[in-house]
């Protein structure tokens, strides 16, 4: 069921034309050590941005730093010179409050100049605590209101099928986010429409804003829930870059018949003992200068 469309709503290379030479292909080579360092580099960048703004989501961002590193430096087919390229793989941040982790990455890849980062937190900055697709190149959809983006991803995956394109749509969701009923509407629709080009990555860090999800509103057994809703499910250590690489490399072809759910078991605040010990206290906060020094030392120490 291929339908001609008038291309992306934003400017992009023509659908018909070959991929431009600036394209970063799927499965780019990257060593485990590099990816691990990259995750820590994301953490350091996040610390700086939050300091600049005065408040931010440390532990939420730290739990998915490895996921960002592997997606952006290994897995996704993207073209920083052409952010609206119709054939790009999409990444949606269901948990939009971790955009601080993406800003350094998108700058590094060349989606926008690095000095944009210095505007973070200021009026008029295109980079904010939550991502805005109208302002920030490389952002495939805006978010911040939890629970929408798996539905949006269903739309993009359906759009890919309708337009006969082979891109993948990845949606990173929080585990607390799965408490939103709209996620299950989307989950139902994804399997009903056999969207094998849709990948949900659940950042299963066990905590929502107010504490452990098990205490607030139990969401387990997650694998069973997604399986019963017609998804192909795998469960991995989401802070392990090798497991992530292996899982994403082994994704079934986008023409497949079942949407794929990767339950990434993570630690909220991963990589910093201060956060790991109290992930809830660091869901939203600001490091004091002393705490910052300590945290940066811990991270830099293992990057050397």
């Amino acid at each position, binding site marked *: 069921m291929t*339908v001609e469309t008038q291309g992306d709503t934003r400017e992009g290379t023509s659908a018909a034309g070959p991929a431009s030479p600036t394209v970063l292909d799927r499965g780019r080579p990257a060593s485990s050590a590099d990816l691990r360092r990259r995750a820590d580099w994301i953490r350091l960048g996040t610390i700086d941005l939050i300091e600049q703004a005065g408040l931010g989501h440390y532990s939420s961002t730290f739990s998915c730093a490895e996921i960002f590193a592997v997606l952006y430096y290994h897995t996704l087919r993207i073209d920083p010179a052409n952010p609206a390229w119709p054939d790009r793989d999409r990444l949606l941040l269901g948990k939009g409050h971790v955009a601080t982790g993406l800003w350094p990455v998108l700058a590094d890849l060349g989606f926008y100049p690095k000095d944009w980062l210095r505007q973070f937190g200021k009026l008029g900055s295109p980079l904010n605590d939550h991502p805005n697709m109208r302002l920030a190149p490389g952002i495939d959809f805006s978010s911040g209101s939890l629970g929408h983006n798996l539905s949006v991803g269903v739309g993009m995956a359906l759009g890919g099928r*309708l337009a006969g394109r082979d891109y993948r749509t990845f949606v990173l969701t929080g585990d607390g986010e799965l408490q939103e009923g709209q996620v299950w509407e989307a989950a139902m629709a994804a399997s009903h429409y056999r969207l094998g080009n849709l990948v949900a990555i659940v950042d299963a860090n066990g905590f929502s804003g107010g504490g452990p999800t098990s205490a607030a509103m139990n969401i387990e057994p997650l694998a069973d829930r997604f399986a019963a809703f017609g998804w192909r499910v795998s469960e991995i250590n989401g802070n392990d870059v090798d497991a992530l690489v292996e899982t994403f490399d082994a994704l079934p072809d986008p023409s497949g018949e079942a949407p794929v759910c990767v339950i990434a078991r993570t630690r909220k605040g991963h990589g910093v003992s201060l956060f790991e010990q109290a992930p809830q206290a660091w869901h939203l906060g600001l490091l004091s200068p002393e705490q910052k020094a300590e945290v940066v030392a811990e991270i830099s120490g293992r990057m050397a």
Partner: protein
Amino acid sequence: MTQPAEQGQASRTDGPKMVDVFSDVDIDTALATNPAGVAIAAMADEDPAILTLTADLGNVLNEFRERHPDRYIELGIAETNSISVAAGLATCGFKPYVYSMSPFGMLKCAEQIRTDWAYNHLPVRLVGRLTGLAMGLFGTSHHAVEDISVARAITGMTVVAPADAQSAVSLLRATATMAGPVYVRIAEDASPVYDEPPVYEFGRWQRLRDGADIALIGHGMGVGLAVRAAEQLAGSGIEAQVWDAAYLKPHDADAVLAAAATGRIVTIEDHNVIGGLTSIVAETLGRAGVAARLGSVAVPDEDIEVGVPADLYEYYGINVAGVVARAAELTGRL
């Protein structure tokens, strides 16, 4: 209202009845009864980017489904999902029309429409059928009298309310290429006003009749009521101006001021008297510091009765007689 047991009326088998607005037998291909369904099917013949989505309301899209089966997307009874899915499709260059029942579409999905459509300036359209009291007997949960208020609160929404089938065709075509989201409010009980699709200017109301004694302003089904009431009023020597308030956001402030020059305005709508056209007109006058006597033919802000639409519209005076009465009151004549 008194309890029926006390009223002691006989069972009325011959009174007005519900009409099956969902029927997939006759309704789907008739412009008069299903203007948006027919118009969108025709537009889709020319524009391959047009899709339709529904949450179990596909019966009114049979024509579209037959001609473009791949471009009809059924989402089941999951309204909020249908909104966000449409947003995702729009980012891929499609132009989704989401069909919904007005009692649910805007009100149940307001946050998704704001966050996923309006904030992102996406070209998606919500087409609401079954406005006002059209669902009549289902009304315990099915009256749709809040949707304009909600839609107008959302920055970036365009809100249009066709007066009849021809007007629906015009407004659907006029808004088809807009960059942002549009809410198209299809009134079920509209009587014919236009012989052919009228030409609307963006944000402008149409003056359908001149008159210096009073202005009647309606949207949707209210336009036909205004036209017919004006004819009756003319018979009694009252010259009524008539306006088709097709654009509810942005609205036509100049038209309101022109209407106010008569000194008297009656607004006519199948919406709560708060937050719809009545509020728009009053507010525009208030902001402009212009005084006029206002009357409204609208759904009162109180618990709404349940019954077949014909009974309800009569009960609330949302009919030609109601408009005439209100105009008579304001002009002090008749």
